[in-house]
């Protein structure tokens, strides 16, 4: 493969983490809940997958266990942020600290030990034999296809083409009106806390079972924060989030390519590039909205990060 296509190959894989975790966050934010625990949930998924891989060589089993662990964390988050209605920023950061501490404690013994259960590449018949592009795009682990095609299709259909999706968006825009219409705000928000936890953990599991198959401390490595930002500059739209994920993957892969090719640019530039570009893109989307005489908060779900009290309706 040429340099470009082998970089694309890595970019596609690196983007998966942002897409999986970000899609859960996107759905949850559409219901009006902001989850700052996402970085921790990715970590829990990673450590759960690593621990499971010590007893099972089946990557799917490890993935499912990780998703279960992530949903459990999502349930704790839901208990505090949705049911007990504590401040979502505090609950999210608390979940982040709890998860990152647990992850590093539980995973310490497995640091830099190769993970045994890894996903094999799944070559799509026909497409994968296209020269250059085929191996880069159509000979990938199954989660890559899930993240780039299946998940965004499902999320888009559910959010914008189903009654349930209408309910979800109503809860995020105007929970009082949704409540009056007979939609259970608490039930929908709780359900999507579990979905967000599960998807974030799936992203962490993918990291360990495919992208970089050995545990390291702080396995999420800031990708959770990038996913949060990606949801913003994707303007809460699933397909734009896919593009955001691919872009992040591209920036990550650029650093690796630069190293491999021996480009004479300080590595720090590539290390900070994903974060700087992420901030720059949030700025650009806000600027673009400004030109349309809109504010970012008018695009965001109106009830984002606001607990819902029926008695204050």
């Amino acid at each position, binding site marked *: 493969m040429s340099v470009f296509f082998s970089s694309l190959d890595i970019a596609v894989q690196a983007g998966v983490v942002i897409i999986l975790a970000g899609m859960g966050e996107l759905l949850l934010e559409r219901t009006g809940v902001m989850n700052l625990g996402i970085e921790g949930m990715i970590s829990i998924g990673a450590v759960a997958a690593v621990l499971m891989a010590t007893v099972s060589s089946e990557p799917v089993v490890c993935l499912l266990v990780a998703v279960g662990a992530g949903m459990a964390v999502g349930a704790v988050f839901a208990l505090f942020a949705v049911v007990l209605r504590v401040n979502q920023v505090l609950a999210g950061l608390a979940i982040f600290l709890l998860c990152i501490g647990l992850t590093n404690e539980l995973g310490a013994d497995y640091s830099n030990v190769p993970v045994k259960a890894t996903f094999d590449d799944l070559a799509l018949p026909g497409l994968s034999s296209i020269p250059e592009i085929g191996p880069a795009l159509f000979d990938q682990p199954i989660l890559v296809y899930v993240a780039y095609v299946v998940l965004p299709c499902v999320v888009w259909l559910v959010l914008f083409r189903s009654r349930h999706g209408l309910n979800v968006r109503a809860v995020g825009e105007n929970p009082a009106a949704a409540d009056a219409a007979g939609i259970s705000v608490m039930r929908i928000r709780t359900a999507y806390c579990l979905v967000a936890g599960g998807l974030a953990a799936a992203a962490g599991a993918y990291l360990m079972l495919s992208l970089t198959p050995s545990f390291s401390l702080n396995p999420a490595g800031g990708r959770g*924060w990038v996913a949060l930002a990606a949801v913003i500059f994707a303007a809460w739209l699933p397909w734009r989030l896919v593009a955001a994920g691919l872009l992040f993957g591209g920036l990550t892969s650029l650093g690796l390519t630069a190293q491999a090719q021996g480009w004479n640019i300080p590595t720090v530039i590539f290390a900070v590039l994903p974060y700087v570009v992420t901030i720059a893109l*949030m700025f650009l989307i*806000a600027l673009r909205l400004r030109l349309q005489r809109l504010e970012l908060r008018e695009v965001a779900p109106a009830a984002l990060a606001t607990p819902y009290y029926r008695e204050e309706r």
Partner: protein
Amino acid sequence: MSRPGFRLQRRTTAARHQAAAVKVVGALAALLLAGIVLQLSGRPTLDLASAALDYNLGDWFGIEETLLLAAPIVLGALAVYLCFRIRLWNIGIDGQMSMGAVASAAVGLHVDGPEALMLAAMVVAGALGGALWALIPGVLRAYFQINEIITTLLLNLVALQIVVYLSVTAWADGGVSLRSTSPIPYEVPMLSAGLDVGVLVPLLVAGVLALVLGRSRWGYETTIIGANARAGEAAGMSVRRRIVLVMMASGAIAGLSGMLQVAGRLHVLSEDVAANTGLYGFIVAALAGASIVAIIVVGVLIAMLLHSGISLATDGVSTDVVVAVYGLILLLASLGEVAARYRLIPRRRSRPAE
């Protein structure tokens, strides 16, 4: 409806005492829960706790270490507290601290001069470095409504990479240490064998903050804007400019804290300069609520917990365990603000028509 007992009624204003009580109970419950988990995982909690107390308060050395850890945590908490006053979430203390450290290390490493003058220059550089790093999320929030939580968190990651690059590559010592710059030739004066003047700075900053926020027009206006930005705007205050200024002041406190690390405890610029102390400071500010005195007390307690984690490493407790416990404390204590909005009232036999 004649069930006996009590029911919850929502208050219109928050009861601060109730919030504080619930937070204390929540934090204790978190410690209890953590203790049970440690016990079940085969680590005798009571022995660990008494060992931890001994490490923290058993001798002067332990007290010094705790205070050295507490100083940057309290400074970070004060910086967060200042932002709370105007309803900003500054989670970027670590980044601002790092950039303050970078700026002051740049001055300390590359400029020669008399010690006192150089220390003053490093203080200014540190505060400026932190303030400028906080300017970015401040402007993005004030003028473009971009959530400052996310930008400050991302800027933490950027600052950490810059510190790593400078200390390992650009300004690397090359000889003694592979992970840090050569020693900074200027040091803040010592109070005792182990403590430098830096441990007093949080008290100084706390006093200044209390005066500015409680006794000055600027502080009064800031409080008004925090309580009701529209009212502030209507009274002729520039809300946007105030958001940027408060963010920069907060960053300056964090930057000063970074300077105190490179010219004090660490004597070098290395990636240990922030080491999540800003995040811990955030927990302290969230727990302490609106009281500066509580920030200092809670800050020392949180530092004791951290020091326990560091000291007990050989007994099977690590700082990772402490971080998890911090999360648990924050989670359970966050119920405080909710609880303050309710009161328990006796159920009446029959409810009057509503």
